[in-house]
């Protein structure tokens, strides 16, 4: 009555086993533990703080604040992006490790918002400097709207292809990958030969080379 018995019968897998691809499992894990950057710009950041606080409890999405861009999965552009700040935001985005996502929160970072016409120092949309995954409308968006945006981001991550399918690739890509494999094999063989040649075997007997 163990686990193996159950595996023998493919129609009775029980509650504790689910069948799926590696990609599904990885995406499921990635989407349920996104770490975000503690980074606020303007009014929307106050609403974002409210999302973090007791009533809305953002952590139930598995989101943990990280102060360093190196450890974060996604960044929330919460407020007006000015031209002085735009270069810093671009730098922060570049510092994040792949895969990385961007949520644009509020009208200002979507399109310039109320400052679209006369704001000489306002960037009219953060998507002019970094790619955006989810846009949340509102000025500022309600916490519920923000949480809907978070669900959208999770579903996007859930449906993402991590491994590119070989049959979907272009022929030159496949050729390049094959070429790279051959190169790697060659390099490994060279290194192995070098290692064995320089191996210090004094005082050791009967070591399989």
């Amino acid at each position, binding site marked *: 009555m163990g686990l193996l018995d159950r595996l023998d019968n493919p129609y009775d897998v029980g509650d504790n086993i689910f069948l799926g691809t590696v990609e599904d499992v990885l995406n499921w894990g990635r989407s349920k533990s996104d770490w975000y950057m503690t980074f606020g710009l303007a009014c929307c950041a106050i609403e974002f703080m409210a999302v973090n606080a007791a009533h809305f409890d953002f952590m139930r999405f598995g989101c943990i604040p990280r102060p360093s861009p190196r450890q974060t999965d996604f960044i929330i552009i919460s407020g007006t992006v000015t*031209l002085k700040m735009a270069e810093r935001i671009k730098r922060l985005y570049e510092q994040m490790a792949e895969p990385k996502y961007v949520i644009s929160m509020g009208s200002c970072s979507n399109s310039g918002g109320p400052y*679209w016409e006369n704001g000489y*120092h306002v*960037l*009219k949309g953060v998507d002019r400097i970094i790619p955006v995954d989810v846009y949340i409308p509102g000025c500022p968006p309600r916490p519920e709207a923000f949480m809907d945006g978070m669900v959208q981001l999770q579903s996007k991550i859930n449906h993402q292809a991590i491994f590119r399918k070989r049959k979907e690739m272009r022929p030159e890509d496949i050729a390049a990958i094959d070429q790279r494999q051959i190169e790697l094999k060659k390099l490994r063989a060279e290194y192995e030969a070098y290692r064995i040649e320089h191996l210090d075997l004094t005082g050791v007997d009967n070591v399989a080379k």
Partner: protein
Amino acid sequence: MLPNEIFDKLKIEFGEEIISLNEDPGYEPSIKVEPTNLVDIMLFLRDEEGLEFDYPSCLSGVDLGANLGVVYNLYSMKRAHKITIKVEVPKEAPDVPSCELVWRSFDWHEREAYDLLGINFVGHHNLTRILLPDDWEGHPLRKDYVQPDYFHGMKVPY
């Protein structure tokens, strides 16, 4: 102390440098002065018995068309009275003496007026841009200001 009393007191001390008192209905009472000896006038307003404007409320730069104006809103905590001092300078040579050592509060206010309107506060220890980036061109609050098309490769208009 009423505005006309303050005006009389200043007139006795400084004479010609105090130009006029504006008490039109709808306008807050304001005294227009010459910019040449502004720091002494401000020190007098701050230290003279009976005036004692110890609290600097606000400093605003204004674009008046041909001229640029600086408006000082002062308040006295001891005497609970307030006054507005105005200075006008031509746009070609907008030089106003800096009052940052009279009230330290005006340090940042003057930098802001320089940044947004291009008023040159003579004697300020660090007259640099405060809100806009250092390499920004032009002074946005002037009426004839035109938005730049690009800044550091980023498109500015919508």
